[in-house]
């Protein structure tokens, strides 16, 4: 089969499987045939051992092109991931092995603090839930649409399963974003922080807690996602829309506000508590600023 022929046939296959509206959308997209070829090519390069008929994959893809956004999805499609998911749907042992090594192996690290035995359990349930179908329903992995990395999609399911398996308290602890942590994240390796007296630390944490409470939900979430969960500015831009500089400014503003609030909280307390807090306030106003700026890429 020559390349020329295949190009034509893949696009033809896809056209045959999509609805008339989707077809119109795809036709309007310039170079959609080549795009399709590139996806298939990339998938086959990454998964040479999989024996997935092109027709099966294209039919699978057709199911995941949403009406109205078919062309957009084609552009950002995670071809190799969708290809693997499709092969897993059919129960191909090589695909299952690939899924194990390429996807599942990375899940434990992404679950962070979840205990190793629980992670094992999560992995087991992931396998059951994603890879096993019944006589009339395909395995759930078939519902993966290739719109984001498969690893992301699986990890999110894994996180949900982990939450289900945990007790309420345990889960609460796991997902907690305590201000102590924020305080430490804000000043990661500051020796002065290590030297702070316990009561001063408490005070700092308390002030942070109050300061965080005053921020708007959005500001709070941005700070948490960025500083606590490590989301990059690029990622936040994707999630929140708008320009990168716009999001970066929002985060920076929230941080400024937070610091201002902490300062306001601390200043009167220092008079009252007669604690040796000078260094603490210094820490907040100068060092913390620096470390924050460092984190704001």
């Amino acid at each position, binding site marked *: 089969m020559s390349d020329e022929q295949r190009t034509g046939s893949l696009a033809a296959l896809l056209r045959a499987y999509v609805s008339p509206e989707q077809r119109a959308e795809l036709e309007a997209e310039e170079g959609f045939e080549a795009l399709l070829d590139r996806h298939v090519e990339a998938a086959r390069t990454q998964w040479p051992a999989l024996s997935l008929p092109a027709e099966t994959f294209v039919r699978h893809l057709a199911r995941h092109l949403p009406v109205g956004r078919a062309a957009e999805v084609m552009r950002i499609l995670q071809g190799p991931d969708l290809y693997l998911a499709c092969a897993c749907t059919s129960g191909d042992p090589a695909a299952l092995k690939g899924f194990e090594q390429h996807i599942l192996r990375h899940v434990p690290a*992404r679950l962070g603090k979840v205990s190793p035995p629980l992670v094992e359990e999560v992995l087991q349930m992931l396998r059951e839930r994603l890879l096993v179908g019944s006589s009339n329903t395909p395995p759930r992995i078939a*519902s993966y649409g290739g719109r984001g990395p498969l690893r992301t999609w699986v*990890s999110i399911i894994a996180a949900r399963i982990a939450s289900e398996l945990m007790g309420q308290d345990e889960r609460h602890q796991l997902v907690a974003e305590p201000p102590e942590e924020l305080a*430490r994240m804000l000043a990661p390796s500051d020796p002065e922080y290590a030297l702070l007296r316990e009561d001063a630390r408490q005070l700092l944490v308390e002030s942070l807690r109050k300061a965080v409470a005053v921020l708007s939900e959005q500001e709070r979430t941005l700070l948490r996602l960025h500083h606590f969960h490590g989301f990059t500015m690029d990622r936040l831009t994707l999630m929140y829309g708008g320009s990168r500089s716009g999001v970066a400014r929002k985060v920076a503003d929230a941080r400024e506000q937070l610091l201002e609030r902490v300062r306001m909280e601390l200043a009167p307390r220092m008079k009252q508590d007669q604690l040796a807090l000078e260094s603490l306030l210094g820490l907040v106003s100068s060092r913390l600023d620096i470390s924050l700026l460092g984190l704001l890429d």
Partner: protein
Amino acid sequence: MQSCPQETTLTDLIAGLLSEAHRAQVLAHVETCADCRWTLAAGVGTQAPSSAPTAPGEANSQPLLLGARLSRYVVRECLGAGAMGIVYAADDLELGRRVALKMLRPKGSQREELQQRLLREAQALARLSHPNVVTLYDVGAYGDGVFLTMELVEGTTLAEWMKEPRPWKEVLRVFLEAGKGLAAAHAAGLVHRDFKPANALIGKDGRVFVTDFGIARLLHQEEGASHQEPMEAPVTPTGRLTRTGQVLGTPAYIAPELVRGQRADARSDEFSFCVALHEALFGARPFQGETMQELVLAAQQGRMSPPKREVKVPARVRRAIFRGLSPKPEDRFPTMQSLLAALAPPPHRRLVPLLVTTTVAGAMGILAAYGMTAQRRDDGCAREAEKLAVAWSPARRERVRTAFLATGMTYAPQAWKQFSTVMDAHTAQWQALRTEACLAATGDTADQARQTAACLDARLWQIAAVTEVLEKADAQTVQNARQLAASLEGLVGCRDTPGLTSRPQPPDNLRSRVHAARNKLAQVRAHLVSHRFTDGLAVTSALLEEQKGLGYKPLEAEVFLAHGTVLGGLNKPKEAEAFFYQALWAAEAARDDETVARAWLELIWAVGEEQSRPDEAEKLIRHARAAVERLGRERFPDITTELHTRLSSLREAYGQLAEAEQEAHQGLEFSRRRNPPDSLRTPNLIHQLGRIRFGQGRHEDALKLHREALALRERILGADNPALVTSYNRVATASLEVGRYAEAVSAWRKALALQEASSDPETTPMGTVLLNLAVVSRVAGRLEEARSMAERARAIFERARGPHHVTVIFALSALADISSDAGQGDEALGLATEALERVQRSLGPDTPRAALPLTIRGQVYLKAGRHAEARRDLLDALQRLEKEHGPEGGKTVTVLLPLAELALATRASKEALAYCERARKVTEKAGGAESPDGASALACAGEVHLALGTSAEAVPLLERARRIQTQWGEVKDAQVAGKTAFLLARALMETRASPERARALALAEEARTRLESVGVRGQSELQTVLAWQRREVNR
């Protein structure tokens, strides 16, 4: 909150694929949902690997910060760094113990796989328990690394130890111990693979531990050529020796067959062990080589270097070492055991092998049994841990919560939150320790594990008793929830020293009945803590009957003691006394030293303090001291602390303040050292010391101590706990004495608010607070308010303590003061006389406690111009105070000043001056020169000088008095301050210096304002001021 978005929605959010409207909706949810934020972080893979202080992804490259938290561990101290990683001392928050935490940083491409293997391997190692092996507690992942927590051995490494030449016998002893550790591991199927002097530790007690089984190999293998099994992976020996540490661990100790790629077994450990032993004995390793090749070649050919130092080592030892160093594994001893037997000293030679063999056979038998029944045992242990449900099942937790909230008290939600947090943590710790004890109930620590289990089960009754009481919580119980939670005994003691912690255990046939009774006793304890004495009495009365047929003496003693304690709580010290003696005799018969000591302590209180029988008390004290001595001061910190507390309190009650102080100091030092930081015993002793200081007239010290006690109690009990009333009251009283008037009033108001909000406001601490606030109101001239509060206090005291109690005397005296201020002289006289008669009736005609009503009556007489009667009463009061506190006791000031006033009124100026001077000396000696009393003494002298016409001398005295009185802004007593201002105005005017005239007029004006502010109280003085003003202004 709407339900969480589906995985595809979240994936699309991360990829930026949601429509504008949908995005806004999902983000709005994410903002309110921590679960979703965490899930998103898992999705993008930026999840912080643990609550690390470092940014994600950097966890590996930096050392841990002190205070960093990994799983349930908090890093405290860096102990050292090795080739494999850094070792820290860390606290295990869950089990409350200090552990060594080793952070491993595997390098290489297949980190993740390696990490998994390390985890698996380490989990297997965690099962190995032997006195000569460092116990591995826990393994966890941290970022790309792995951390291990293990037994913290304080001491040094064998490598350090070997740096000095040691006697060969000592070397041999140490190595035989290490060898036993290796042998035990071999018996469990584990091979060390990297035994070397750096991997053995010598504890401070001389015990030897082998550590790091198998782990080094996993790490280094990764850095070598292969991550397959070593069998298939011949390592090409290359590089200089100084650098080869990176290639293959420590090649000097490694058996030649491992270099050839063969699988490690017991005999390769034997080889490493012999290399190290050779080095320790002779000062040099047996094989030498410049490069890896040379070294390996020497070992393979068995070419040994001559010893560096000539040591007289028995031939059998040399022979054994040489055989252990054979190049071929099959030429060495077949097992570590046989090597150790060959090394062991001759007198034991026949004995030791036998011994060793049986131990190992025993261990193997147990290990085999463990292997077979491990699953069953795990299940069984899970069931054991499930017993917790009797104390803190979700259902009971919910019932307790409902009961808390149903009280409707304002602090109930807060109290519930605190209590549930403490209980959740406490019970989780119980489960962890109980499971651990159950799993360890085999092997050579079985006995201890069983004791631990029994001890923990007893603690569980306590927990159950507390929760049972709280299930029926009323307002008062909720109020005491913190104390109840704090009364739960620590669990860690059960593991560390179960033999010392548990009560005598009954024979099997009585077990269930004794357990049932002890369970009820735990309930009594809970009742006692929450002051539900009647409920407690019902339980102990029933128990008295129930245990009769049992004939188990230790229990009998426990029941008598509990019954007596409850009676004591109900204010029946005489009845209680009888039961304490019963408890004592039963405990003596049972040789139960703990209960004996507790009974003596209770008797000190019941006989010495409550029934005031001093002669008997002295004997009881000796018995109690001896009992605690016999028990061991350090063994039961609560008993030892209690001894000091009781004795201090008794001495204080007897007025022996120096002895009381000494006891309090000793107790405090002990309590700080031995009781947990959240123990109420420490603040209680600080409080006690504060009372003593106050009694000594050292008010600044007293204030400091009471503030400290208050802060500690507040931390332990919560800020809104009515139990703080006593502390606030004490802080206020001491504040007042040092002139911090505003602080005093605010502390009392706080105390009043706390008590009013509590379930039963009409308690004796409330009476005290009311009485003190009555004094404040009186001084401020609000006499009706003062009277109503004092009356309420008097009613509380009379109801709680009978009509003759000293607190009632205080209330009557305060009422007399109020009447006197109000100008109701006859009524005041009646009240003071009433107080005097009552106190003499209850405490005898010569009691020093009569000084207060006598002083007040004397002042009333003075005011009425009945100078002879005033003189008689005041001198009587002075005599009593001198007798109790000595002629220079701080309290005498309160009588010396009215005596000076009396002398002045009778124109005996010289005598007046003498009294004033004496008052000044007394206040200075008590450290209160700057106190209100000190100011009054100065004003007193100033007034006399003014009367004598030596106004130049009066001025500096009055200036100083005024400065003290006004130093805190608001004055304590506007009448007194007004009077001083007026005296100063007069003195200044009389010095005739013209610049002082304006100031004198201003001061008089100030005096007028102050005196007007206190209404009827300041009337007579005010009239004098107004008259003076009219005269001077018009001049």
